[in-house]
């Protein structure tokens, strides 16, 4: 009986999803957006692969993850930020505003079941919206393009978690705020807030930067680099679930204000209790085919001998490109394999252009009271200094074959007509067919 009721709820929520103009608009827009990303990416990839006779060296190390998948699925980041929240808000706000929620609250189903059904309907809706992305992957394969399964699946997981945060925040806003418009403003304000946090926290280190690494965009970036960080998965999942739980609390109309506030604060404490330790989990996997998030296996074996905390003082400003290089090429890899890495961002300015001290550009490493300075952001030079500092013999040879890349000089045949004509026509036809009789 319970499963029958849940099926009924799911059926209702799927019907409501299809009744949502916001969802049809999302479907209509996502095709051309994905198509534009894909077509541009394939053309650029072909150019880099030497289709127009460019330098052969450019084709080396070309990977479909950066070249095709990330730009193609970038459309979904945009959709998850600016379109999908409206779909999620409507799932809650429409029932609130039409009075249907008052009827549902008196039905034999629990609020948790009703919200689970809505979450599942939104998930189904999002997976349907993935169709253009899946079509792009299929087209890429038909062009003879290469795909590496683990990094592709990892990227899809990142996008799934990205949209689950959007959905969690949107349903919580829809439950708390009176009216869909207010909920939309709150959701967009949250997004803007996370962007501001990322901007402010960049290159500052400490708690602020750690917090900024869990914003939806930053979390997705990690997946786009082929990395799966357990902390990001756990924190994202907890935040998304918390959004639905907070929504459940505020949708329970029998609660007094005081009860609501107490339970909401209690919920936030529970989230903190789970999220803070989860954020400190160091487990991470590099699923990129070119192992861009890892040192060579021999280096990793040598670095595994470092057992004590490594302190790094970085005298580089937030907007200095060397800092970005350093964080990507060195720091993130060290953090993944060493037991404890403490990075201190010593620069006080954003650009570094007007730094007055003589130490700008220096990167200091401290291990067991010993210090060494190096200005390089290049992996072999930094590792050499580190081996000397910690007293470990550097490995003689890497023993690994170099990633040669997958250049492909193909044109996006068939993609423009598919994404710019067939997809919009198909969605418009289905939309019209579905809404037939409503006029």
């Amino acid at each position, binding site marked *: 009986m319970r499963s029958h009721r849940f099926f009924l709820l799911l059926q209702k929520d799927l019907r409501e999803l299809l009744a949502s103009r916001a969802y049809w608009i999302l479907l209509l827009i996502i095709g051309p957006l994905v198509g534009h990303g894909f077509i541009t990416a394939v053309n650029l990839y072909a150019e880099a692969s030497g289709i127009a006779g460019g330098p052969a060296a450019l084709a080396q190390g070309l990977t479909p993850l950066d070249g095709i998948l990330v730009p193609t699925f970038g459309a979904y980041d945009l959709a998850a930020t600016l379109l999908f929240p409206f779909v999620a808000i409507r799932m809650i706000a429409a029932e609130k505003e039409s009075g*249907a929620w008052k009827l549902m609250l008196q039905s034999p189903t629990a609020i948790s079941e009703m919200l689970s059904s809505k979450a599942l309907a939104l998930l189904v809706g999002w997976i349907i919206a993935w169709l253009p992305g899946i079509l792009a992957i299929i087209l890429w394969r038909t062009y003879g393009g290469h795909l590496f399964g683990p990094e592709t699946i990892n990227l899809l997981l990142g996008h799934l978690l990205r949209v689950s945060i959007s959905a969690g925040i949107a349903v919580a806003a829809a439950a708390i705020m009176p009216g869909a418009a207010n909920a939309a403003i709150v959701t967009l304000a949250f997004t803007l807030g996370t962007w501001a946090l990322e901007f402010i926290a960049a290159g500052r280190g400490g708690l602020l930067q750690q917090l900024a690494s869990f914003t939806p965009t930053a979390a997705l970036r990690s997946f786009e680099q082929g990395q799966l960080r357990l902390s990001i998965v756990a924190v994202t999942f907890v935040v998304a679930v918390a959004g639905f739980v907070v929504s459940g609390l505020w949708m329970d109309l029998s609660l007094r204000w005081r009860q609501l506030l107490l339970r909401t604060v209690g919920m936030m404490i529970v989230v903190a209790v789970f999220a803070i330790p989860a954020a400190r989990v160091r487990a991470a996997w590099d699923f990129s085919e070119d192992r861009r998030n890892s040192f060579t296996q021999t280096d990793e074996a040598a670095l595994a001998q470092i057992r004590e905390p490594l302190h790094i003082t970085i005298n580089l400003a937030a907007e200095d490109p060397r800092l970005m290089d350093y964080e990507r090429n060195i720091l993130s890899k060290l953090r993944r394999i060493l037991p404890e890495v403490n990075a201190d961002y010593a620069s006080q300015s954003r650009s570094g252009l007007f730094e007055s001290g003589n130490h700008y550009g220096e990167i200091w490493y401290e291990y067991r009271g010993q210090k060494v300075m190096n200005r390089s952001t290049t992996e072999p030079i930094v590792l050499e200094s580190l081996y000397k500092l910690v007293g470990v013999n550097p490995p003689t040879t890497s023993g690994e074959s170099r990633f040669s890349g997958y250049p492909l000089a193909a044109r996006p045949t068939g993609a423009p007509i598919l994404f710019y004509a067939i997809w919009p026509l198909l969605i418009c036809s289905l939309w019209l067919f579905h809404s037939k009789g409503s006029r």
Partner: protein
Amino acid sequence: MTSNIAQPREAGENPSRNANQALPLLTVRGICKSFQSNIVLRNVSFTVRPGEVLGLIGPNGAGKTTLFECLAGLTPTDAGEVISHGKPLPPHARKQSLFYMPDAIRPWPDQTVGWVASFFQQMYGRSPSESADLLKSLKLDHLSRRRVWMLSKGEAKRLLLALGLLTPQPVLLIDEPFDGLDLRQTKEVMALLQEHARRSRTLFVSIHQLTDAARLCDRLVLLSAGRVVGEGTLNELSTDAGLPGSGLEEVFLALT
């Protein structure tokens, strides 16, 4: 349906219901509710007897809708309780005994009438024929493919009544069951509600048309400025008001 036109009757004249007077189905005791400094309900107490049609009447702003929402557990109360079978019924458990059908809502406006009725029928384990009969009784059967947002006010009201009557809770609270209905529809709906009451379903309805209330209800609760100013049959109320033998309008004006 048209064969069941309601017959006018004096409130409280149903002997089978009077027999149950000693055994209240629900006892509402000391309900208080305020929104910030605006006190809406003040120590509201009354009883609901099994199988009766209890009417809630009062001027605009008396707190009728708020009282229904408080009873259904859809609005938290500041004080008071609802007692069922001698035990307090906490707000989260009210849906086992009560179903409240609000006024002026359009649930799932983008869905069809047939689908909404079918959803309720399946949710509450009713048979498709029960749902079909009800839609027919309320003259909604020809509208089953129409979207809810397209319904007229009266059609939407009849849909809400159909949904309410598909629910199985022993007590059905209906806010303004005749609002938007014409005279003929009012009489037909009244007969349908009486038929459901005869099948031992207790109805508690808020009605602003006093003539309709007098026709339909066995007993009445008069609410004025958030207080219960009278409870009983029309005869009892008119006696309380010092106007024995008067109609409900005179009693209403005297007590509110």
